[in-house]
């Protein structure tokens, strides 16, 4: 059972509270309304709105002030980035409705809410995904995890099935499915919010790998790949996280226990049971983990051979790939 930390001491600005399902509710904009700039009396251009809010975010200590105001303005104007909007449009006067929309979203950002939750969407590779607190926001590093899985799966023939542990917003599996539409993906998450959010062409199951392994095993037969970006942070590091991460994102999606490996060990246990021979498990991890995972696998899961560690785009060890050695009892794929 995850420890549910009471983070009320962190909420210095707002009266957020946790309900029984441990949902984190972002503060409503009314809490901070008094510190928002008032709606402009005269009409302004998009560019003026961007500059004005950029400055205001900076004054109030909101992180990434320029990017925040640009993304929000672009979003209200129907584009993904400010670069996607013509210069003439940016210099044109905004309608009162659009101005109000920009002000409303910027007010939310002013409370420290992550930008992705403010605009309720974000991109992951070539997908646009819905974002809603407290479901974990996909990180850019994880885009590379998908590349590694894809490059291996593309070489395989026959029917393919994968398992994803901890889907969050569905980024990983949905990306894989977009490139390999014939892929069968079985996806799990301990959070009901995550499952509700990720609802398309996937078979989704509200199951916790730490508590309900038997249920998971009953659903899976031989898969070619298991992929996971499991909670991997060390518990002691949780307190020093960026405030907006701490306040808005599900701690169960982040906290990997004392050594950050609680869920990872369980994923590797599951991998050895559900993977076909030569099937691989792909993990995103903390930079300190790769040698620890290798050691642990060698002593506890000798059928899981450590293949390699990959670096992320900041040159940190970030991804671990292990392969199931050939054993006599291969779990045959369930060909429905």
């Amino acid at each position, binding site marked *: 059972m995850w420890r549910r930390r009471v983070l009320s001491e962190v909420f210095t600005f707002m009266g957020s509270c946790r309900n029984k399902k441990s949902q984190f509710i972002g503060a409503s904009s009314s809490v901070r309304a008094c510190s928002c700039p008032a709606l402009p009396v005269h009409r302004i251009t998009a560019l003026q709105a961007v500059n004005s809010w950029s400055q205001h975010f900076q004054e109030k200590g909101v992180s990434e002030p320029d990017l925040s105001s640009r993304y929000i303005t672009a979003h209200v104007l129907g584009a993904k980035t400010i670069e996607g909007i013509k210069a003439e449009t940016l210099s044109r006067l905004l309608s009162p409705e659009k101005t109000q929309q920009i002000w409303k979203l910027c007010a939310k950002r002013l409370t420290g809410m992550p930008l992705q939750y403010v605009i309720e969407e974000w*991109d992951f590779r070539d997908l646009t995904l819905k974002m809603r607190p407290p479901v974990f926001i996909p990180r850019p590093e994880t885009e590379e995890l998908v590349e590694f899985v894809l490059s291996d799966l593309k070489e395989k023939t026959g029917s393919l099935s994968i398992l994803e542990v901890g889907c969050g917003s569905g980024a990983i599996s949905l990306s894989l499915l977009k490139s390999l539409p014939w892929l069968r993906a079985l996806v799990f998450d301990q959070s009901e919010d995550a499952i509700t959010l990720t609802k398309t062409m996937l078979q989704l199951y509200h199951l916790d790998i730490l508590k309900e392994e038997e249920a998971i095993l009953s659903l899976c037969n031989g898969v070619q790949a298991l992929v996971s970006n499991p909670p991997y942070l060390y518990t002691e590091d949780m307190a020093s996280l960026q405030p907006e991460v701490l306040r808005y994102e599900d701690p169960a999606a982040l906290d990997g226990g004392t050594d950050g490996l609680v869920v990872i060990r369980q994923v590797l246990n599951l991998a050895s049971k559900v993977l076909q021979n030569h099937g691989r498990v792909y993990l995103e991890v903390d930079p300190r983990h790769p040698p620890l995972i290798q050691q642990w696998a060698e002593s506890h899961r000798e059928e899981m051979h450590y293949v390699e560690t990959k670096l992320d785009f900041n040159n940190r060890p970030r991804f671990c790939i292990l392969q199931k050695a050939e054993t006599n009892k291969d779990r045959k794929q369930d060909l429905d």
Partner: protein
Amino acid sequence: MSRLLVSVRAVYAALCPTTVRRRRGVTGCVYPGLLSSAGKKDLVASELPVLNEEELEEQFVRGHGPGGQATNKTSNCVVLKHVPTGIVVKCHQTRSVDLNRKRAREILREKLDVALKGELSEISVKKKESVQKKQDKRRKVNQSLEKKRLFKEALAAEPKPTNTDS
């Protein structure tokens, strides 16, 4: 040319540490999809120079902190440098780092093409073709207008039928 945003301003870049990453051990371009897909302006991708990842340096602005799950940042600008020629491409066109990296490579290929081939580069060729097309179109329109004018003049010059002729 696509809109390259030089959005990573000097101030912003100075505030955030960047990491340089050189990708190793891959022959040819990491993204084979580029070879089969047309870039912007329908350039023939197969005519563009192939990138060698060994010759590229990438920079990402990810700010301070451990990265990964621990950090939530929206900065995803990619700066790609072709070391042998010194050509630098900055790409901030999308909200995905992965897409920006791919797009940066496409743009770099186009720039390299111009640098290496000059007048013979794909972009120059396309520009010339486009100018030529416009000239041809204008000429046709003028010809057509001329024909109409001559026809009208001929009509005006024709003797009108009168009642006394019958």
